[in-house]
């Protein structure tokens, strides 16, 4: 059904881009006042088109979300220190809440793979996932077992494997192996092992805060990433022309959609689809897997609506937005049902109906992505050829 919907979108997407070329907005004014000023058709220059996409994405999506991540990571860091000082159940609950907030605020901007987040492996450091064969987890276990306090100095810690530096490592510290429910008093026992675990947690949360702050500041800096995005040129280190910038934004949607389908949902059904593998989900130990996937998808939805791409939907002579909204709504309806039943990923995969709903979510995500890849990029004349976009 969904694919059928997209079958008719080809011409609509094409018109989007024509519409964009004729769109009637004033870019800087729009981003500053959030009220687009109308311009007559043809008055919009190529630079203004680029600025629409870049500024809208930056002001309404990227910057606020990195700010939220930084804000939540600060709370997490501070609550971890408080917990280690008091060892109280109340403070531990606060740590868990702040952990969830931080993970979800990361999931809300996880799809951006350019700018400060890709420098110095910040993205991988923040969340080392997927952890194939549990290599990352083994590194975390080794670090805990060694109880080497020198390894927790900021300098030494930054030189450690990226797998031990971020949210996935912190999840293990806070929730344990996940085989059976572990009380925090067992994990953070009053002995040397427990104290080291706490100190490692403090170092981890401080590191997560620092990484988040670096990324946020990198985006805030007016002469850095945003300047590069707005001024593509032969001498620009990353973007030679406007098309490369638009491509960057476009791929931040399509690559993430593919990741959600290929890595976050599909592997949960095993290679042949006969068995279920809930432990392949991201953040299954903390029970956040479904929320992470939902947040990832919501982030795509928000990005399309709030960035310049939304303009294309608005300007279309047909109600294209209706089709895209319909798909997103269908996905949200399934997640709502999971939430109503308080389902976590284990429950979903154990329940035949819920399992099929999750498979449907994956299909819908895939259909949305096929639609974008097939029509949007083609119409925009983006260099996303058969080989260029998915070569080997």
């Amino acid at each position, binding site marked *: 059904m969904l*694919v059928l919907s997209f079958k008719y979108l080809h011409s609509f997407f094409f018109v989007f881009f024509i519409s964009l070329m004729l769109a009637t907005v004033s870019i800087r004014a729009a981003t500053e006042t959030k009220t687009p000023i109308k311009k007559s058709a043809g008055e919009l220059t190529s630079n203004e088109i680029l600025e629409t996409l870049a500024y809208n994405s930056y002001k309404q999506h990227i910057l606020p979300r990195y700010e939220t991540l930084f804000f939540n990571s600060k709370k997490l860091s501070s609550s971890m220190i408080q917990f280690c000082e008091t060892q109280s159940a109340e403070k531990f609950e606060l740590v868990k809440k702040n952990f969830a907030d931080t993970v979800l605020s990361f999931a809300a901007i996880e799809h951006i793979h*350019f700018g400060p987040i*890709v*420098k110095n*492996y910040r993205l*991988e450091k923040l969340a080392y996932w*997927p952890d*194939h*064969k549990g290599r990352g987890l083994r590194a975390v276990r080794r670090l805990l077992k060694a109880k080497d306090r020198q390894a927790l100095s900021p300098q030494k810690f930054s030189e450690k*494997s*990226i797998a031990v530096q971020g949210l996935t490592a912190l999840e293990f510290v806070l929730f344990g192996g996940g085989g059976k429910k572990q009380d925090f008093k067992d994990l953070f026992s009053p002995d040397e092992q427990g104290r080291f675990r706490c100190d490692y947690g403090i170092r981890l949360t401080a590191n997560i805060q620092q990484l988040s702050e670096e990324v946020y500041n990198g985006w805030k800096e007016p002469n850095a990433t945003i300047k590069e995005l707005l001024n593509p040129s*032969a001498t620009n*280190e*990353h973007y*030679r022309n406007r098309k490369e910038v638009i491509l960057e934004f476009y791929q931040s949607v399509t690559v993430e959609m593919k*990741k959600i389908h*290929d*890595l976050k949902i*599909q*592997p949960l059904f095993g*290679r042949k689809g006969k068995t279920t593998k809930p432990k392949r989900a991201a953040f299954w130990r903390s029970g956040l897997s479904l929320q992470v996937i939902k947040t990832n998808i919501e982030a795509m939805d928000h990005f399309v609506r709030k960035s310049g791409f939304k303009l294309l939907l608005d300007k279309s002579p047909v109600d294209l937005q209706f089709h895209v909204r319909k798909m997103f709504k269908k996905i949200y309806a399934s997640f709502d049902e999971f939430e109503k039943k308080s389902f976590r990923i284990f429950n979903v995969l154990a329940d035949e109906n819920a399992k099929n709903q999750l498979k449907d979510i994956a299909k819908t995500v895939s259909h949305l992505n096929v639609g974008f890849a*097939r029509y949007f990029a083609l119409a925009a004349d983006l*260099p996303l*050829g*058969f*080989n*260029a976009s998915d*070569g*080997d």
Partner: protein
Amino acid sequence: MLQMAINRRDFIRSGLAVSAGALPAFILSPTVQASEKTEELFAAARRHLPNGESASYSAALFTSAGDLRSVALPGRGHDVAVRPHGLGEPLTQPVEVVAFARRPGRFAVAFSTNSGREPFHFFAKEDRHFYGHGVFSPNGKLLFTTENDFENGVGVIGIRDATAGYKQIGEFPSFGIGPHDMALLDDGITLVIANGGLETSPETGRQILNLTEMEPSLVYIDCRNGTLIEKQTLPALLHQLSIRHLTVAGKNRVVFGGQFKGPKTNQPPLIGFHDRGHEIKLVAAPKEVLRDMKNYVGSVTVDKSGEIIAASHPRGGFISYWDAVNRTFIGTKKLIDGCGVARTYSKGEFVQTSGTGQIEQTSLSTQVSKRFETARNVQWDNHAILVK
């Protein structure tokens, strides 16, 4: 027949950023003209543009006049290997080729220029998948394929008997992770393997799992017994330069094209040269060209003379040419989404295929490029090969 010859001025304008003075002398020597040549036959995998819900795939044998034969593939293909005539078999007998699944596919399809013969399907073992490349022994009896042992996260070389229904008869380690392209040196014994160094998810076969621990390598093994002869790795700073595709130039100089998986801000050289017993030499294209490559080489092929290399850059939309003797950059030619490059029977000449469906034959000697007649609504995949 659609034949869109372009003159020298147009050719240069179209992007061959090289002056005649910069061309190696052997390129400027007289070459066999297209009209005098016997018809060359090529093979490549391709996708048919969706005419409904899903795409379909095929492998084709084609000449400049269009398809000679098209064989349906169960999924997306990648490269094609040509089976040499067996000892004692007449050269007039039909040529067999094998099209391989793109990773992480498990199928391979053998078919012949004789359309009366049904295509023959064979598969990788259950706990293996192909990486899309293979090479035959010189007598055409054995087929070697690059494969992934995904349970153990190591690369292997599968060995099959082409004279016995491609039955698997053995396996060697590739001495690295993610073996991709491979070739035989002219001794017919030494296999050179490009271990990309990338470990990928067994579910999708494409998601990279070991970005920070990559160790690409160029490995030489004795194909008679799998003995490791030589292994070359890249300097630590370039450990994210995945050695992916290769070709064997004259005097067994191996030329490879890499794909850099590190930060986009880094733009290392992507073309490497290696002579047995020596260190790998990476050669950078001019800064602007290197930047336009977008850290990606799709395929590399040596010409008939063994002295000119064509490397494709679909992300930049051009083909680059290299002097394999002097290890120097020659120039570029635009080709949107161009990826497959096959040699022809002429010096400095290549057939280049594109994801847009276009096929062009480009001669560096005459600086003329002509288009092939080609099936409509197809997208040519990564590689193309001269069959005969």
